[in-house]
């Protein structure tokens, strides 16, 4: 383990050689310490990530990340662009499997079960771990069809000619599911009178809340959000933020964000990723924003870097 000049001299006295991790290109920016990321979340652990390592071809995107995500809380992942926070998020419901060049090592345990073991049912996993994307991506279908899409495809709601012929069609339960999901996503009031309209006619903020409703309709336990408000205006953003706080009462929310303010406003605990795919610090949000242990995290949060 070679070590080159540390960037920050004030931390030098705290450093012991064994805790220094050098990056692949030989530059050691600053040490990362295991106690900075060893945050005891207190609550019941929903997702336990251990030594997660992701490569895209030759690119080492995520380095030995370990963290516990407690249930029914909001966990924010922040960091500069390209730091691996979205990669980390996409590992949690195995969306990275869809990228052919990605190779993933380590374990992610959902309620104590490793989701990277052989024979895992991806359909079941993604039903339990929902995801909302950066730019709103409703299907070019009606609002109702967007919300009921997941349950329909999973066979939870039967519609169509055959279901009607066999008497298994249940329009009331679909109606109720659509209403409940839209209400939970704080969109019902705005669209209740035009459920048959195409979802692409909604505004960006409404589309994003529709995507959240679509995700809620399959009744997940965890909701992953990849910069859910970055494509939205301030008013739509604040609605999404309110919604995130509200959802945390029932769901485990993990949200990637570029906005420090957003992380500070909505999250219970915050993980800071810095360039090179390292998790540098993971702690209570207040602690991260007021008194971070790492100098680099402090620089990043105060806007000196990144």
């Amino acid at each position, binding site marked *: 383990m070679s070590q080159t000049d540390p960037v920050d001299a004030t931390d030098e006295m705290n450093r012991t050689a064994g805790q220094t991790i050098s990056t692949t290109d030989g530059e050691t920016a600053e040490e990362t310490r295991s106690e900075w990321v060893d945050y005891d979340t207190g609550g019941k652990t929903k997702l336990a990530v251990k030594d997660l390592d992701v490569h895209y071809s030759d690119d080492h995107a995520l380095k030995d990340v370990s963290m516990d995500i407690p249930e029914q809380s909001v966990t924010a992942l922040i960091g500069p662009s390209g730091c691996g926070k979205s990669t980390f998020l996409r590992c949690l419901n195995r969306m990275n499997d869809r990228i052919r060049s990605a190779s993933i090592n380590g374990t992610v345990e959902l309620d104590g079960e490793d989701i990277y073991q052989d024979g895992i049912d991806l359909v079941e996993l993604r039903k339990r771990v929902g995801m909302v*994307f950066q730019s709103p991506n409703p299907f070019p279908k009606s609002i109702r069809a967007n919300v009921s*899409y*997941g349950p329909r495809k*999973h066979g939870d709601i039967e519609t169509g000619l055959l279901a009607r012929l066999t008497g298994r069609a249940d329009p009331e339960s679909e109606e109720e599911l659509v209403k409940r999901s839209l209400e939970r996503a704080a969109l019902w009031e705005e669209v209740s009178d035009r459920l048959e309209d195409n979802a692409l006619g909604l505004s960006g903020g409404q589309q994003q809340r529709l995507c959240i409703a679509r*995700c809620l309709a399959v009744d997940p336990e965890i909701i992953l959000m990849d910069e859910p408000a970055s494509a939205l205006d301030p008013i739509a953003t604040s609605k999404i933020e309110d919604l995130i706080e509200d959802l945390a009462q029932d769901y485990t929310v993990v949200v990637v964000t570029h906005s420090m303010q957003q992380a500070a406003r909505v999250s219970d605990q915050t993980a800071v990723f810095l360039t090179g795919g390292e998790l540098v610090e993971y702690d209570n949000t207040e602690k991260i924003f007021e008194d971070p242990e790492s100098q680099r995290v402090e620089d990043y949060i105060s806007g000196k870097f990144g």
Partner: protein
Amino acid sequence: MSRATETALVREGRSSYEGAAATAIGLSGVVFAVGLGTLVDVLKITPPAAGVQLSTAMGIALLSLGVGVIGFGLASRLGYVDTRPQPSAGIVAAVAFTCVWFAIGALVAGAIGLGTVSWMAVGLVAGAVAFAVTAFPREDIGSTLPAGSVAVLGGVALATGVIGPGWEWVLVSYNATLFGDTAVPVVVMFASLLTGWAAAKAYGGFGARGRNVGAYVLIYLIVLSILSVLVGLVAFVVVKGLPGLFHGFSIGGEQVISWPFLTNGASLLADVAGVFPALVGTVWLVIGAVLFAVPTGVGAAVFLSEYAEQGRFTQVVEVATNGLWSTPSIVFGLFGAAFLIPRFGNNKSLIAGMLTLGFMLLPLVLITSREAILAVPDEYRDASAALGVSKWKTIRSVVLPAAVPGITTGVILGVGRIAGETAPILLTTGGGVLPGKSAAPSVLGGFQVSASPPFVTNPSLLEATSALPYQLYALITAGLSGNIEAPQQFAWGLALTLLLVVLVFYAIGIATRYYFRKKLHQ
């Protein structure tokens, strides 16, 4: 303060100049349209209108346009109006005018009767002068003077009757004669195109804005000519075909609408010979081909774009598909005749034609479906996967519906091509030259259930059947001397029917596409 005046946003004192230029653009457009009309025989150059022959009138118009355009250039160059010309008209204009004037010089010298060396020399000199005049002076002169001179020259030639209705030029080495009624419109259209462009540049005050306006006018005039060629072609067939198509047509009476041309066969007993068997044959051929090609083509496209690893294999398939699409139809026909016919009772048959046309349609459906599927945003696939929906269900309920408009476009284009194909039908489907009404295939009524394999048979699929393009071809090769009255009228009616059938298929396709687009976006 010279800079302030140079960059003034509003140019003053140009309204009359702009008005004159706009008039010149309009006049160029009118002259161009009249030229186009004479070229496609809508207007005649011979009969005098108000005492003046049309060609003479157009010559005078061209002459005044040419003088006007040169005047615009001079007025701008001498500073009477506020324009923004660039230092030169540019290399493209210079080369274009060089070619134009080389051709004019060579033609004039040749027409006067100079020898080979001389006309070449005259052409070269004219081209060189045009190049110099375009390239060296400022843009206002460079783009108006050569264009205006073409119009002046053409105008003088037309107005003085050097080129006119009686004019003809025997092209010895081509064994052909060029007549005045072709030469006049060509001169008129070409010269008015140039004056329209130059006047448009003057209207925009030269410079970037002038070039912009010039390009617009040029593009509009060319689009006009393309459209008129299309309209002219269709109108020609319609005018020639209408008498045949509506021969014996009546509304009222027992059948409410009686349209014997479409409902009769061509038997000796029928009062009016009709194209019913061929019409039904064509419709069934197209339906059969679409039923075969669309599922296979879309299926292959789904495999290639969603499942197959993008690499060498898909590239090879792509090249092969493109090659298949450009394969001549007679080759498909030969394949059908040599491969399919022996397998379907050794006779020319409807089903052999359906499959052959299906093979022809397949590559286009595959290419367009593949592109339509690839154009579906990955966000939809991601969103669906994140909801735990399997790949196939995602393809079926999100990807394919979003790709339907693109797929439909491919099918429309393909149907347009195969409905009019003659060669494959000639080799695989056959049918009589003038089939009677009983020869029409009755595919729906033809199904028979039997106790032994293959359990369901349909003799009408295995019979030779006529089709519209084939019958037209057969009529023409038979010398239009069949046992029907007015075979010429019959043939034109047949051609119009074929055109209408293709248009109906187009209309169905476009309506389908419109429906699905609307469903996706509203």
